[in-house]
């Protein structure tokens, strides 16, 4: 029996573990090693250069532009997306007309709203990014056409072509793509909070604004925290790369105004043939990610309340 059990365990684990080790673990470990070499990626020649790549980072102005933009995304994207998500979810759940017994109630048609809001979540990033790229097009895009239609002929921004606006345009698309998911997620959480809590608070003279901050938010905090980390990783990694790479001019432009860390890693490896240096940029991205997760995990740790 024991013998059979171990053979079974090994038999079931060996293939998934092998795939995972070869394609996920080993590249991560190698990346750290390569960050101490002058590897170009074009040939297999390389030599150890110690911390040269890392000291070079300090003098690389494009790197610092990318850090600035990535950190801007990291600070704003989760907060804006989650706040909008919480706001709409709260409107869905307490904005309804008062019924006979219930003190608060959901709005009519909340199911329909949720179905619509979730649309962007099932679309791929290229679809969303390309759609917005057209909408931002200065000549024929939907936005400038709209401004013309309402008589604002002078307001015809360059959107993605304007270094002052480009990053905000991309952030707008990313927010658009993600809010719906959090509306649905938070709404599910809110509808499971017992109505008596609100009833008691309203009897005690609280208004709806207070109930949100005193009851809803604390009880949803675990979910908000998880969402915050998801959004943070999204702002730093894959999603930011895809949106910037597809939407921005350059990509990363104009004038490095949309350059972000994952895009810079990609460009240094596959455009400039500096794979060793690129991995040191990747390692700094990893460090930013870990610091961010650690901070969010510590924010408002509290006892879990079961209800």
């Amino acid at each position, binding site marked *: 029996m024991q013998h059979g059990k171990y053979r079974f365990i090994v038999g079931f684990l060996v293939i*998934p573990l092998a795939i995972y080790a070869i394609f996920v673990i080993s590249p991560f470990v190698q990346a750290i090693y390569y960050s101490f070499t002058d590897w170009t990626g074009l040939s297999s020649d390389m030599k150890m250069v110690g911390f040269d790549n890392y000291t070079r980072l300090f003098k690389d102005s494009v790197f610092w532009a990318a850090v600035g933009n990535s950190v801007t995304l990291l600070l704003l994207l989760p907060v804006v997306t989650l706040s909008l998500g919480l706001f709409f979810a709260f409107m869905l759940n307490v904005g309804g007309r008062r019924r006979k017994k219930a003190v608060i109630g959901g709005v009519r048609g909340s199911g329909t709203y949720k179905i*619509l809001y979730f649309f962007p979540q099932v679309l791929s990033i290229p679809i969303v990014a390309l759609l917005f790229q057209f909408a931002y097009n200065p000549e024929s895009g939907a936005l400038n056409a709209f401004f013309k239609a309402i008589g604002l002929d002078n307001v015809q921004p360059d959107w993605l072509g304007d270094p002052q606006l480009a990053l905000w345009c991309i952030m707008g698309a990313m927010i658009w793509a993600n809010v719906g998911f959090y509306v649905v997620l938070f709404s599910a959480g809110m509808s499971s909070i017992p109505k008596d809590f609100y009833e008691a608070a309203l009897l005690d003279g609280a208004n709806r604004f207070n109930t949100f901050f005193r009851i809803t938010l604390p009880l949803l905090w675990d979910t908000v925290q998880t969402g915050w980390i998801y959004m943070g990783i999204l702002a730093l990694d894959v999603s930011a790369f895809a949106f910037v790479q597809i939407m921005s001019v350059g990509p990363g432009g104009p004038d490095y105004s949309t350059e972000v860390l994952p895009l810079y890693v990609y460009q240094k490896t596959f455009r400039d043939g500096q794979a060793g240096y690129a991995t040191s940029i990747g390692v700094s991205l990893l460090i930013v990610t870990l610091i961010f997760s650690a901070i969010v995990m510590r924010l408002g740790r509290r006892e879990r309340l079961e209800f």
Partner: protein
Amino acid sequence: MSVQTTKPPAVTGRGGAGGKGGESGEGRVLNVFSHGVLVIWGLLVTMPLLWAVISSFKDDGEIFGSPWGLPSALHFDNWARAWDKANMGQYFFNSLVVVGGSLIGTMLLGSMAAYVLARFDFPGNRFIYFLFVGGMGFPIILALVPLFFVMKNMALLDTYHGLILVYIGYSLPFTVFFLSGFFRTLPTSVAEAALIDGASHTRTFFQVMLPMAKPGLISVGIFNFLGQWNQYLLPTVLNVGDPDKKVLTQGLVALAVSQGYKGDWSGLFAGLTIAMLPVLGAYIIFQRQVVAGLTAGALK
């Protein structure tokens, strides 16, 4: 778990009966306000999508001349051009092959690993579990540089099976995390009964445990399907050598670049719409399952 997922409230029949005079002013103002903001966001979400669909029926002149106008005639030829000449058909097929293979592989291998890690005690169990789960928090771009060269040395670049293996690898962390949590909640008695009746561990897994885990498998299956179908970063790095092997997401971006040069905007909108409608259609049909699948991870 402090916040439970509940069934989405029924869409209709909730509002009607109540409002009989006793409503306060505050409530009514709030009601109007909340409908107002909810409708605005609803429009913000749907307008760009509708705009793309409408534009796909226009000719290029109309797209430039009146971006918000309706098409004068329905130009279905845009769609035909995108499907044939711009290779959307081929890209669709490539995505189907890759995601078909990787989804089956992810579900099979992920559930096997999760089951063993959730239900058996052996030295190294915790270590392997955290090795898998830890993969969720790392920036993938860091691994991609060496991964490209690993794939190159194994002659896996620009192949279906190479992409399938990589998709499986990067889907395993969440799959193992989610399913091992799920297997842990299932009762042990049924599996024990099967073992006592002489079934092997393997047979118990496939014939007893997997059927019991069906709700969890569906959730994580939908999650993985959408993630892999919409995958853009991995193919952008690992599948660029052969234009005929592009998956749909890559194909769209390539289409945007090439049609941009040719000025064939209508073909491009048709391509976008072709890529968009099947996913939206499937979502509307399986709405409840899709929402449950995608939110499952965040609610655990």
